[in-house]
């Protein structure tokens, strides 16, 4: 959003009030003003966000103004095909927003409230599903983008801008995140926006905050613990299989969950193979687009704690971290000393790692083949279920491809945001952090080319196809592991179910799905060479 500020010079407040009372027309000047008003609003909101971000770090209450964050899903849906004049009535009541750029000013929220209040008075035919207004708006906007209908795009974005908020309900949040993506796309500043957002989050990243967010997330939602429990179960069974038990175990951990998977594995290892606990080494690979000192510090701290904990558990343990900048497929796995002289049994654990690899140039196949060459005893793959690969070619997708990817992103992230909303308490800094992260992913998905994207998830069927063609065969989860997963889901709130992947044809995907309200969201599987 900062980039927008640079692109558009700030308008004076006088201009703004003038803009607010003018009706929409197709005159370029008006459009420009509306653009700037629109951008100002977003900019102001961005400043708010920054302000709140700073607050986050000091543990202040994030929700200082309850009424501004109150759910306004009951507001009426503005039909985009209605004459534009109706939309401007919402802004006539806007008081002069003089201190817009003052981060301490919280009066802007009132504007939003009023905006929401007036549509009911102007009562434009509130067609459409009241609850799903954001999806409809967003889809319309995406369609317009795909069709390169800039006028319509601007109309819709303006509306979205009015109605969205990163602190509102799920609909508003989704609208806000996608809107951010749209902005980046239309201004061709996707990668730049992404870098800015990543740098901002990096600045606030610390061991404390990471730990808090990750652990709280796992406490309230099985989104990540589902994959962890399934993977740990499969790994343990593969390692402790009496026919091939080894005294040295090595796990190559390609994951973005900051080693929260391993304490339970260590405990299980200590208690299950009671008499002679084998030696365990874990090599964690952390990847990012650009090197980050914050992440390095976090991993250092994590490493220390893991080692102490392993000592506490009585498991001989060694921990290595590898920081990799760039695409994972470029990492040379042979340099990691995974065999430790040849005696260790190897397991490879990929949590959300594969979709971080660029879909272009067969890089994903390259990585999987490299893993195959390591001859691991077992490979666990946990991925989020969404068909976002798109064209896979260079350059941003255009037209239909973009629209398809957009719809799928909307579906997936709606489920994600909804589950976050229902799992976390009403006011939660951890959830905000996760939503912000999702916002970054969305900017990547909407505004960045697929070839450079690290968010191009694929479906279980897609990954299964790749694994099979690389020479892996699916290893079904045992009944015990399935029971463990079911017991895990029982510990959480309602809404989560587990489903085994369909096994009919040769091409079918293996593994199990975590479903949120009957919609598969996370896929966990195990593979053997």
């Amino acid at each position: 959003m900062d980039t927008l500020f640079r692109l558009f010079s700030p308008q004076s407040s006088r201009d703004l009030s003038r803009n607010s009372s003018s009706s929409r027309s197709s005159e370029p000047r008006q459009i420009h003003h509306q653009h700037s008003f629109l951008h100002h609003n977003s900019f102001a909101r961005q400043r708010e966000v920054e302000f709140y971000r700073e607050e986050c770090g000091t543990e202040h209450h994030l929700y200082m103004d309850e009424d501004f964050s109150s759910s306004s899903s009951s507001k009426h849906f503005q039909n985009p095909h209605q004459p534009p004049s109706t939309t401007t009535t919402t802004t006539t009541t806007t008081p002069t927003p003089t201190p817009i750029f003052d981060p301490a000013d919280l009066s802007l929220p009132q504007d939003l409230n009023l905006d929401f209040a007036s549509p009911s008075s102007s009562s434009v035919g509130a067609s459409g599903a009241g609850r799903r207004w954001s999806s409809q708006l967003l889809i319309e906007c995406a369609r317009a983008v795909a069709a390169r209908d800039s006028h319509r795009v601007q109309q819709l974005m303006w509306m979205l801008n009015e109605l969205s908020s990163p602190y509102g309900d799920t609909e508003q949040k989704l609208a806000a995140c996608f809107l951010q993506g749209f902005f980046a796309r239309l201004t061709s500043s996707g990668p730049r926006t992404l870098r800015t957002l990543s740098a901002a989050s990096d600045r606030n990243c610390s061991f404390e905050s990471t730990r808090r967010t990750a652990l709280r997330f796992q406490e309230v939602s099985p989104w990540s613990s589902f994959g962890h429990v399934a993977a740990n179960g499969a790994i343990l069974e593969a390692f402790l299989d009496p026919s091939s038990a080894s005294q040295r175990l090595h796990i190559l951990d390609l994951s973005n969950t900051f080693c929260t998977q391993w304490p339970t594995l260590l405990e299980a290892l200590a208690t299950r193979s009671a008499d002679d606990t084998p030696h365990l080494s874990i090599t964690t690979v952390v990847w990012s687009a650009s090197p980050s000192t914050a992440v390095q510090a976090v991993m250092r701290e994590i490493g220390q704690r893991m080692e102490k904990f392993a000592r506490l558990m009585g498991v001989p343990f060694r921990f290595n971290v590898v920081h990799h900048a760039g695409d994972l497929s470029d990492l040379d796995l042979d340099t990691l000393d995974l065999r430790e002289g040849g005696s260790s049994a190897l397991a490879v654990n990929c949590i959300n790692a594969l979709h971080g690899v660029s879909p272009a140039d067969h890089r994903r196949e390259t990585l999987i083949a490299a893993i195959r060459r390591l001859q691991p005893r077992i490979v666990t793959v946990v991925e989020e279920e969404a068909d976002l690969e798109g064209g896979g070619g260079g350059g941003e997708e255009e037209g239909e491809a973009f629209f398809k990817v957009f719809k799928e992103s909307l579906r997936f992230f709606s489920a994600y945001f909804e589950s976050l909303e229902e799992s976390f308490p009403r006011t939660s800094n951890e959830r905000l952090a996760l939503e912000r992260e999702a916002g970054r992913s969305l900017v990547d998905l909407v505004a960045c080319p697929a070839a450079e994207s690290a968010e191009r998830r694929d479906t279980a069927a897609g990954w299964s196809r790749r694994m099979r063609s690389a020479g892996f065969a699916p290893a079904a989860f045992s009944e015990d592991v399935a029971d463990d997963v079911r017991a895990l889901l029982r510990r959480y709130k309602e809404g989560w179910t587990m489903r085994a992947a369909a096994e009919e044809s040769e091409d079918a995907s293996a593994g199990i799905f975590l479903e949120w309200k009957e919609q598969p969201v996370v896929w966990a599987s195990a593979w053997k060479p």
Partner: protein
Amino acid sequence: MFLSSAAAPSNSTSISEEASVSSETRFHVSFSSLLAPSSPHHQPQQPPPKTRKKRSQPGNPGRPLSLSPQPCSSWLLISWVRGHIYAADPDAEVVALSPNTLMATNRFICEICNKGFQRDQNLQLHRRGHNLPWKLRQRSSKEVARKRVYVCPEPSCVHHHPSRALGDLTGIKKHFSRKHGEKRWKCDKCSKRYAVHSDWKAHVKTCGTKEYRCDCGTLFSRKDSFITHRAFCDALAEESARLMSAAVTTSPPLHQPLFRPFSSWHPTTSSNPNLIFNPSHDLDLGALQIKPAENDLPSLDHHLPTGTSTSAHLSATALLQRASTMGAMSFTNTVSGQGYDGMMVGDVAAFPMWQNGHRLTRDFLGVAAGETGDDDDDLLLDLVTASSCAPMGDPTKQLAGFPPVTGPWD
């Protein structure tokens, strides 16, 4: 409670007396010998049923021999439990039942109508109904003259060797089920499997009711969130340091002289006041803390070769023990845990183990928690916390978490 021989406080003297009286200097210390201190040659007898029911005693109870400086004969088989030395009964008949017999549920058969019963009493009751003539009513006294000890038929098992035989039939049956049997019972909350129905029942009672408290003060109802939290908790740094130092400090005074059985059988009483180690304290520990202590110790075997981690595995289960909030940890409990912890560190290396790295006391009993490796924490927890929160003289309450005794302790 231990049945003390005539003079309770002066245990040491009474044992040495008995031993020295015996012309063969047999260190024959089955429980019965203590009941009849006058007889110089101690016949192996059935210990009275009353004492056999005491779960707090090992299968082959006896006086701790730690106190006695007598020389011993070479044929004496020594196995020791919880830091005490007990001599196996050399005259006992070693019985190895077949797996089928062990798994059979109705082993008491009426000879008249061939009806099967699970318990001897039930069979006797049934036999009464046959109106037998008087003399047939009595069980032939010759049959039960010899004490029987049972070994596990599974050759790879620790208890296959006669020196590690178990003293009672129920014990060996349960052991066989647990270790070598199919686990047919499953907890639906945590998917733990059990072979013995009573183990399963006991677990289901407590599964999910435990709460875990981290050292930092946070309370958890879920074990997995507790574990993950603990791994990254700030309290971890101090914790491991404390554990290490505790293990180190308690080990030296206790272990050395006590556990070099073949070398230390010389008059060292005076030089090792620690050996005596407050017999009353031992008694207390023996009577009340046997369960937790003996359960602590065997876990230390896990890392014989790596010295520092011997106490570390203790802490995997100790961690969960300590964290459980079913009862506050008493001081004695901690001390005994640490103390035995210390004793074990050196012992194991010194004593020629039949099978390296196996657990001692629990398997000796054949009944205790943790034979199935994953029972460690739960049953351990139950025992520890149950014992720590139970009043001294209430044995039934102590065994709250333990599989209930279903029959006579035979």
